[in-house]
């Protein structure tokens, strides 16, 4: 009866992806999905993936057998099920998007209709965990405590529930991700707005007792269908209850729980998971009373999650891979442990280190967004630091955030109102705590203000004490051996010590190495050295006393990863790094990956020969370079973080592969680059240096007046890039830009209006282009390229323009002696082509152009950098289809932020879809970002007169389709003049029949609001309409060109049934007619 079990394997499995990256749902699902596909392939199961996120690893060749770049919606999924003759589906690898879609499909009876099995956790268990009331009831059945709460299905019920529980209460949304719709409500006044907001986002809200100050602890649990059950990892939040776990600093394993607490919660976790019948992986969250062993179960996520990705990286236990195997019917002891290769998946990792996760926020990028953090997720990425003390890991983590700090520096973000800074959490609170400690606040006092456990605060005070000790070294001009060693053990970087002591960091490094104080490479082996393990998963620490990973004599390369996800740098660079490593591996190189982002595939220990999970900084790269002695370092695949290190590393003797560091600098340094363009005779917008703020007037005159674009050097995603429309604004921007980077000059450029923007992505070899592709933005120049809608091949620019652009790219490649990837952004206006910028590294659009053209630009670039030259066929223009790349915004999560596009990037993710023509590709892409075909009505509020009139044809189309049009007064006037019927609305907040009213009443399901101009603030009334639309989760278009393209697409493709569902290879297989 207990013989070897052979699971009944499905034949054709459909995996639902998570779609575009957004706040609350990021790259971790690329990691879990990729692992899942890998597990399925090992079992020879035919895999079909639906995921519109074109920048992911999982949507690449060599993963799923069939890839559909389409929205993960019930309709499209059903069509894929029918077309591909799917017999089983996996719902738990694509985050909340996949789970919700999966539940919906069940309601629609799709699984029964097509006889599709849901693998892994059964749908009943998913419902038990997602529906708040069911969840409570199920746990009550086994005497497990949940927070006292009532589920409410509408605002009225919500009010009742608040009364019953009594303030303060916690609101939690059902079926949501990242705590959307949740809030802590403390006063009567807040009740109404909080409920309104919550119900706009989710259909059901749980009103719950607020467990302020309780510890927040999580366990990752795995169970197989035979009921073997383990907890892979537990984690403790630095921030107590009230701050979403995605917004919390988190440590693993827990630090302040004793053995009894640890195991009581572990036992409950297993009991709950067994009772719910989870098969695979899930996460359980607890609140734990700091004064007793009393607890509440907060929630169970019956799917792979951000926490599970973190737990995988924290322990080396491949949760997603194991969950996939369990879904196929394997049991835990039948699955081998990939790290030790001697043991099985049925074990619980023991850590002999700890990790610290730190979220990365980009709140300052959003005008008007609140800086407070709380029960809703707002962070856009996270980092994980590994070490052996809390000070060590938190200091590493703060550096990894890439926010310009060298550790938990008390003087970095000083605020006057220290008490408020402590009691009201913001992204910078840990620095305020450090400052408070330095100012003499006791741990007790800080604990009262923050409710953070004293254990963490004491650990932080060790850091602050070291700052004081280092300050004492100032006078002597040197750091003694003991201080140096202790500082390193507390996680200080050379640069951090340099700031604290005023001693040059290079001297510190020299002295340190002379003293024999160097880091060592330690292994993560899942068993804390109890058994021997053949692992390649490594980190560096000053607490280790010997290197564990032997340095080989093979030819090898080091790939520098992209670091933490943030606006402007996300999964696309991970795709580039992984592909670069794979290409190098194919050429016989040993590959070493250096990266620290737990949400990535590149930090999967399977990807490279060695994974060093550590900082990507000048100091750490030099340390790895010294130890490993690779043949070269790839800095061009991880975005701006590694790219910025190129010049400094090269000066210290590190061999940079591909384009030389000096040439990278010539392109990055705005001033040098502009000079180069002049030298080459390549046209560019008029520009000038910032030399002296007092000479502003002269400079403006030189550029031909306003508007003016201000651009600092070495920036990604337009950080600190702004448009100035008048003098005061310009001066203000200049002062801010100077603060961003004092080392590099600021350039002022004439801001071109009504120009097209095109981008060339290319690979060159010794200055010769070997691969290229050209994309066109739908929006006019002025919208950041990361927020723009890209079309490949271009749809409206002329052939001479394409030729000119191509010629410029070739000239630049030659002049900069490029070997490797590069990207040029250009303006096209009236036959002229002007260069805006050029990056000698992989760009954000590289996965998109690679997948649309079918040429892997990264692999080719890597081969060229390694000196391998094989001829390639290039399809830059002759494609028998169109690809569209559309940004994904997360404005609903950023309370108060103005959802307006500008020169600074605001999108958190993107999708890329295909179509027979531009209309189909655009509609597919928009649907994949959550857009819905309008059915009820359209609200039009168009800015300048010229904009109003250039929309007349489109307005007529909307009227023809039969959509009621609502318009603000100016727009209504225009519509009347061209005989389009509309309902005029007031812009006045509170006025009856105002635009905001119509949105609230749900009379419109598409809002087109084009602001008067891209000024810094946006007009206040426009802001209200935009914000209200976003809060009501309505599709919002704020760019005129995009609005026009959208209406045209709606006209051509009236509804989603008119959109074809074709797989990626079906498009690529179309033989293009050569346009030579």
């Amino acid at each position: 009866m207990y013989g070897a079990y052979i699971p009944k394997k499905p034949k054709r499995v459909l995996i639902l992806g998570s779609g575009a990256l957004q706040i609350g749902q990021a790259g971790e699902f690329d990691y879990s999905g990729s692992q899942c596909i890998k597990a399925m392939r090992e079992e020879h199961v035919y895999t079909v993936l639906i995921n519109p996120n074109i920048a992911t690893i999982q949507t690449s060749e060599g993963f799923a057998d069939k890839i559909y770049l389409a929205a993960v919606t019930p309709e499209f999924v059903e069509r894929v099920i029918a077309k591909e003759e799917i017999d089983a589906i996996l719902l738990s690898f694509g985050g909340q998007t996949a789970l919700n879609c999966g539940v919906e499909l069940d309601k629609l009876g799709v699984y029964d209709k097509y006889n599709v099995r849901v693998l892994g956790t059964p749908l009943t268990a998913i419902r038990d965990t997602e529906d708040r009331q069911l969840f409570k009831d199920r746990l009550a059945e086994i005497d497990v405590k949940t927070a006292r709460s009532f589920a409410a299905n509408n605002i009225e019920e919500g009010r009742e529930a608040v009364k019953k529980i009594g303030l303060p209460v916690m609101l939690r949304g059902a079926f949501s991700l990242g705590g959307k719709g949740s809030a802590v409500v403390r006063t009567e006044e807040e009740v109404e707005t909080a409920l309104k907001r919550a119900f706009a986002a989710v259909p059901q809200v749980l009103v719950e007792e607020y467990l302020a100050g309780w510890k927040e602890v999580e366990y990752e649990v795995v169970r197989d269908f035979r009921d073997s059950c383990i907890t892979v990892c537990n984690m403790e939040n630095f921030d107590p209850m009230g701050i979403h776990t995605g917004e919390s600093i988190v440590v693993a394993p827990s630090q302040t729980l004793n053995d009894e607490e640890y195991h009581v919660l572990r036992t409950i976790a297993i009991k709950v998971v067994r009772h719910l019948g989870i098969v695979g992986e899930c996460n359980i969250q607890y609140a734990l009373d700091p004064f007793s062993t009393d607890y509440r179960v907060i929630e169970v996520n019956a799917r792979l999650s951000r926490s599970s990705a973190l737990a995988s990286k924290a322990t080396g236990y491949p949760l997603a891979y194991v969950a996939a195997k369990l879904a196929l019917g394997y049991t835990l002891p039948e699955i081998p442990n990939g790290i030790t290769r001697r043991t099985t998946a049925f074990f619980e990792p023991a850590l002999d280190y700890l990790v610290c996760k730190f979220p990365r926020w980009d709140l300052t990028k959003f005008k008007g967004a609140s800086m407070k953090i709380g029960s809703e997720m707002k962070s856009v990425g996270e980092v994980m630091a590994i070490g052996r003390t809390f000070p060590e890991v938190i200091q590493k983590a703060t550096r990894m955030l890439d926010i310009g700090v060298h550790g938990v520096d008390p003087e970095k973000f000083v605020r006057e109102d220290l008490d408020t800074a402590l009691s009201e959490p913001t992204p910078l609170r840990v620095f305020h705590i450090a400052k408070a400690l330095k100012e003499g606040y006791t741990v007790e006092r800080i604990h009262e203000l923050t409710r953070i456990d004293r254990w963490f605060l004491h650990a932080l005070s060790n850091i602050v004490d070291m700052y004081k000790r280092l300050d004492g070294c100032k006078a002597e001009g040197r750091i003694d051996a003991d201080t140096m060693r202790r500082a390193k053990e507390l996680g200080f970087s050379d640069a951090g010590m340099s700031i604290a002591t005023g001693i040059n960091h290079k001297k510190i490094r020299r002295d340190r190495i002379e003293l024999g104080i160097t880091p060592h490479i330690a292994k993560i082996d899942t068993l804390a050295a109890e058994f021997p393990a053949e692992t390649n998963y490594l980190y560096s620490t000053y607490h280790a006393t010997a290197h564990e990973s032997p340095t080989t004599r093979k030819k090898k390369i080091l790939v520098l990863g992209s670091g933490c996800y943030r606006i402007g740098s996300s999964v696309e660079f991970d795709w580039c790094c992984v592909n670069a490593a794979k290409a190098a591996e194919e050429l016989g190189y040993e590959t070493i990956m250096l990266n620290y982002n737990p949400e990535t595939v590149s930090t999967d220990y399977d990807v490279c020969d060695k994974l060093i999970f550590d900082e990507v900084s000048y100091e750490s790269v030099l340390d790895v370079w010294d130890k490993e002695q690779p043949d070269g370092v790839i800095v061009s695949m991880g975005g701006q973080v590694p790219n910025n290190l190129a010049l400094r590393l090269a000066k210290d003797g590190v061999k940079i592969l591909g384009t030389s560091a000096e040439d990278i600098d010539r392109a990055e340094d705005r001033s040098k680059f502009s000079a180069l363009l002049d030298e080459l005779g390549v046209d560019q917008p008029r520009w000038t240096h910032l030399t002296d703020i007092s000479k502003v007037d002269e400079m403006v005159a030189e550029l031909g007046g306003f508007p003016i674009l201000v651009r600092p050097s070495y920036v990604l995603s337009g950080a600190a890039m702004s448009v100035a429309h008048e003098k005061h604004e310009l001066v203000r921007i200049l002062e801010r830009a100077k603060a961003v980077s004092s080392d590099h000059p600021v350039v002022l450029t004439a801001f071109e209006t009504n120009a097209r923007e095109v981008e060339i992505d290319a690979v060159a070899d010794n200055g010769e282009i070997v691969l290229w592709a050209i994309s066109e933005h739908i929006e006019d120049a002025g919208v950041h390229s990361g927020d723009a809608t890209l079309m490949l091949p271009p749809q409206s620019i002329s052939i001479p323009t394409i030729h000119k652009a191509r010629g410029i790219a070739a000239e630049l490649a030659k002049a900069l002696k490029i070997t490797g990837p590069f990207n040029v952004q250009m303006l096209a206006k009236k036959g002229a082509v002007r260069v805006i910028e050029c990056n000698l590294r992989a760009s954000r659009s590289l996965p998109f152009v690679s997948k649309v053209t079918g040429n892997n630009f990264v692999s080719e670039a890597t081969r060229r950098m390694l000196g391998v030259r094989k001829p390639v066929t290039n399809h830059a223009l002759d494609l028998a289809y169109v690809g569209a790349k559309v940004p994904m915004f997360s404005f609903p999560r950023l309370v108060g932020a103005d959802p307006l596009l500008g020169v600074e990037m605001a999108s958190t993710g993107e999708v890329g879809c295909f179509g027979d023509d531009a209309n189909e590709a655009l509609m597919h892409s928009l649907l994949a970002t959550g857009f819905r075909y309008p059915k009820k009505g359209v609200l039009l509020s168009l800015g300048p007169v010229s904009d109003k009139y250039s929309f007349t044809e489109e307005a007529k189309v909307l009227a023809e389709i039969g959509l009621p049009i609502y318009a603000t007064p100016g727009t209504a006037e225009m519509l009347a003049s061209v005989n389009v019927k509309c309902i005029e609305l007031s812009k006045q907040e509170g006025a009856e029949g105002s635009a905001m009213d119509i949105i609230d009443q749900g009379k419109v399901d598409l809002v087109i609001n084009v602001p008067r101009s891209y000024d810094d603030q946006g007009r206040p009334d426009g802001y209200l309409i935009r914000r209200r639309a976003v809060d009501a989760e309505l599709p919002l278009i704020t760019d005129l060109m995009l609005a026009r393209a959208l209406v045209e697409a709606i006209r051509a493709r009236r509804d989603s049934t008119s959109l074809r569902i074709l797989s990626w290879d079906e498009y690529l297989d179309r033989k293009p007619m050569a346009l030579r």
Partner: protein
Amino acid sequence: MKLILEDGTELSGDSFGAHRSVAGEVVFNTSMTGYIETLTDPSYRGQILVLTYPLIGNYGVPPDREAGAMNRPFESNEIQVMGLVVQNYVDHHSHHASRRSLAEWLKSQNIPLLSGIDTRRLTQKLREKGTMRGWVVAGGNVDWEKKNADRVDMRKEVFELVAPKETVTHDGKGAHILLVDAGCKDNICRSLLERGAKVTRAPYHADIVALAQEADGVLLGNGPGDPKDLSELIAKVRELLGTYSKPMMGVCLGNQILALAAGGDTGPLKYGHRSVNQPVQDLLTRRCYITSQNHGYHVLDESLPDDWEPWFVNLNDGTNEGVRHRSKPFFSVQFHPEASPGPQDTAYLFDDYLRLVAAVRS
């Protein structure tokens, strides 16, 4: 302060506990929590304990027990180890139950604490070389310190130190269990009491054959050292195996004693099991459990007589984790179902055992 191993390894660190020299076998444990339970576990008597997890002391130590009490988190009335070696001792403890730091507690019982050692590296060494003798050396004159370091004889003295002085009975309404104590953790006793049993806790050298007749069942507890050094106890258990018809259960050392008494053999493990994350599988049901373990010796499966069979197996290295008699109610496990520290997955074994005892009794 230094740790010196018999292979000549010398590691320096900072002294936080009692500043004195001790000698003993150096063993490690990789569990991430549970230092209080581990330090008071009599199985560690005479040993220098290395905790691999790098942060130790986080949640401090609760006040000492009242006289006669048997409360958690303590597993006996005193710290059992000779000395403690950690990577980073954390003095600033934080926990609602904590009344003092780990160092204060260790000092109060005259136990040295050496911090600042790369315990991962040390664990690797101990894993590869097996248990080594070692010295925590407090003074500069190393040879003198080593010679005069406090130590425990591990063949005989160790059992005398950990076993109770006399037989004690804890009342309960349920079945009467004889708990044979050669260094038994308190939580085995608590586990029985919590389930309503009446427990007579007798030292291993008591007349357990006679005591067993008065009880409804026997439980052989855990303890330190090499099981073969307990030949008297083995002989008594052998006598019981021949005559006894009531359920008999063994835990850890008890597993080895039972196997030896049955005619089987034990031997040292290549890699000792010293952690709370040991996976085992029940060979009858195929179910798997995570268990808490601390042993350097194991039962040799192939040595078992015909009427005995292996019951549990370790999924990491395939070694024996429990044996059972094919027809009589005698069985034992190598791991610690009482946990403390560690996972509570196999606590059901106490329920099963008491159920069986009750069934046999009626």
